[in-house]
């Protein structure tokens, strides 16, 4: 018997422009099922600015306001302010940005909006690089990754920025990680975020990119699941910046995740060992924050 909190109603049309296996597409489909029709999306430059479709069509059945790359959060905050002045407190305003629009160019406006505790949900669908422009590194790109701007032996030597720590440090009411391979958990978190109306809520969604990662599209969900099973992308929630809840505990080696992706193919045994140590240390730190 199937127990699912996922609505049948869908707000994403089949005719959108995502690549086969696009994790960002799966994320949007699930998120909108949780958020419902009274949702306004604000989308900066990113793959989703294209996936949603060109004028005059739209691949989504909710309104979209496209904005510039750096400004997802603050544009959403402006929409919120306008709706509030019109007396519409029901509609949920969601900024939907890639990792570039969150970790890099969008971080100033996100930090500003979070510090002002603007009443929005900010979603980062994280495919760990600038995919729209052809797989360039971002500060979300993990150690060891080959991208078009970290090519050859110049693969990325610095670690992925810890965005959840940064958001938690803003003491916002809610921050959570979610993963397209865990749809019930993802939907629950979006529903919870929606219900916690009143301040800034941040959801960091793991979103596979077969095109950019050198993986077969049918592995999209499998690899996403491995990210959590290896503790590379643990699922957890942070309330008010300090109250941590861990939702999953992985037990598989990082290699299971790394070895099947083209972007990590070049890594030697010592690099894999380094990554495993980093993953273990990060997970220990997370467990400490959870406190039980």
């Amino acid at each position, binding site marked *: 018997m199937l127990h699912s909190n996922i609505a049948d109603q869908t707000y994403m049309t089949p005719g959108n422009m995502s690549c086969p296996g696009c994790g960002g597409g799966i994320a949007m489909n699930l998120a909108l099922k949780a958020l419902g029709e009274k949702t306004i999306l604000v989308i900066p430059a990113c793959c989703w600015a294209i996936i949603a479709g*060109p004028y005059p069509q739209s691949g989504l059945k909710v*309104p*979209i306001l496209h904005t510039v790359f750096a*400004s997802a959060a*603050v544009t959403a905050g402006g929409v919120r302010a306008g709706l509030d002045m019109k007396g519409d407190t029901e509609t949920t305003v969601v900024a939907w940005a890639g990792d570039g629009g969150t970790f890099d160019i969008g971080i100033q406006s996100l930090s500003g909006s979070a510090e*002002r505790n603007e009443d929005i949900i900010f979603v980062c669908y994280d495919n760990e690089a600038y995919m729209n422009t052809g797989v360039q590194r971002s500060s979300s790109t993990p150690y060891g990754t080959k991208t078009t701007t970290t090519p050859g032996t110049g693969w990325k030597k610095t670690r992925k920025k810890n965005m959840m720590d940064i958001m938690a440090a803003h003491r916002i009411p809610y921050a959570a990680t979610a993963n397209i391979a865990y749809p019930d958990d993802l939907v629950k978190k979006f529903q919870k975020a929606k219900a916690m109306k009143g301040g800034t809520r941040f959801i960091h969604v793991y979103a596979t990119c077969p095109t950019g990662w050198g993986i077969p599209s049918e592995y999209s969900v499998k690899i996403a699941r491995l990210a959590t099973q290896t503790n590379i992308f643990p699922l957890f929630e942070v309330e008010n910046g300090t109250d941590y809840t861990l939702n999953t505990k992985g037990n598989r080696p990082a290699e299971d995740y790394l070895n099947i992706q083209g972007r990590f193919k070049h890594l030697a045994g010592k690099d894999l060992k380094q990554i495993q140590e980093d993953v273990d240390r990060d997970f220990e730190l997370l467990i400490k924050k959870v406190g039980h």
Partner: protein
Amino acid sequence: MKQVIEGSHAISEAARLARVKVIAGYPITPQTHIIEALSEYCEDGRMDAKFIPVESEHSAMASVVGAASTGVRTFTATSSHGLALMHELLHWAAASRLPIVMGEVNRAMGPGWNIWTDQTDSLAQRDTGWIQLYCEDAQEALDTTILAYRLAELVNLPVMVIIDAFFVSHTYEPVIVPEQSEVDRFLPAYKPKFEIDTNNPFALNQMAPPAIYMEMRRSVQLAMEKTLEIYNRIEDEFEDVFGRRYGGMETIRCDDADIIIVTSGSATSTCRLAVDELRKQGEKVGILKIKMFRPFPAADLAAALSDVQKVAVVDRNFSFGAGGIFTQEIKSALCNCAKRPDVFGYIAGLGGRDITTDTFKDIYFSTKNMTAPKIDSQWVGINEELL
């Protein structure tokens, strides 16, 4: 009621009277007083509006773009580096067809840091699709801001209301601050032509392929082309209610003039005095004050200037590698006229350097004494030893 207030606050008062609903603000000298007053009005209930103290000017414009997309009246203000930081969003706001009104205080761009007046900041944004209205004094700034909302909402383009740093922004002047009821009569409640609405979902500002992009840009231009006529019409209504009008440009003592000096902003007031004195000495000189720079009132300007022998354009701005920006635009407005004056370009008062009545007199006599204009703009008052 007549009050003695700063030019900055004349703009704040106008935004209050326009019943703006969302204001985003970020401080920068010499603009800061505009948004400080507005944040106070939002706090103490004099305005029913939300003030968002954003973390940058880029975000200020993004924030009002978001708010205006929901169909409410919005306002922000900036200056110089703040305006430059907004550049990307200026394009975004205009092509979104959002009737945002912004106060802009002309201040020099660094380096070196210079907080004094200079028009290069706003003129560098001339291609973004914003209507630009340059004001001479505080009363004009207040009136123009109120008028700007009518104009913006009729043509669906954003409007920049521009004043000079300090000479207007920080100078206390007697200003007639109208009653709310009078402003309501002139500026009715805002009825947006479109707004984001979950009951009628569509995408705004989405990808526009080559097959449609040009038409979108053309439609912005078509709105620009109607702007002057609509501006003139709403100035009639403004005059009915308030008894004042300014025009997209103003001609002063031009009827029998042999030489017309073209000015903008607060330097115009100085020029009025200089021309009075020159007239007393028997010189046949007039002034053409440009208020509307975008859209550029090229036809009216050509009509006003084509009969005169010489035109001296005073630019408090500069485009490196070219010349004074008003001069360029005026030359291009005149170039297809059968009969046209010689155009002499002068650069004066950059970075807040004084433009005095003597500056204008020097410019006048230099123009009178030269037989033909130089190709390059002439820099007035340059200390050659410092170069």
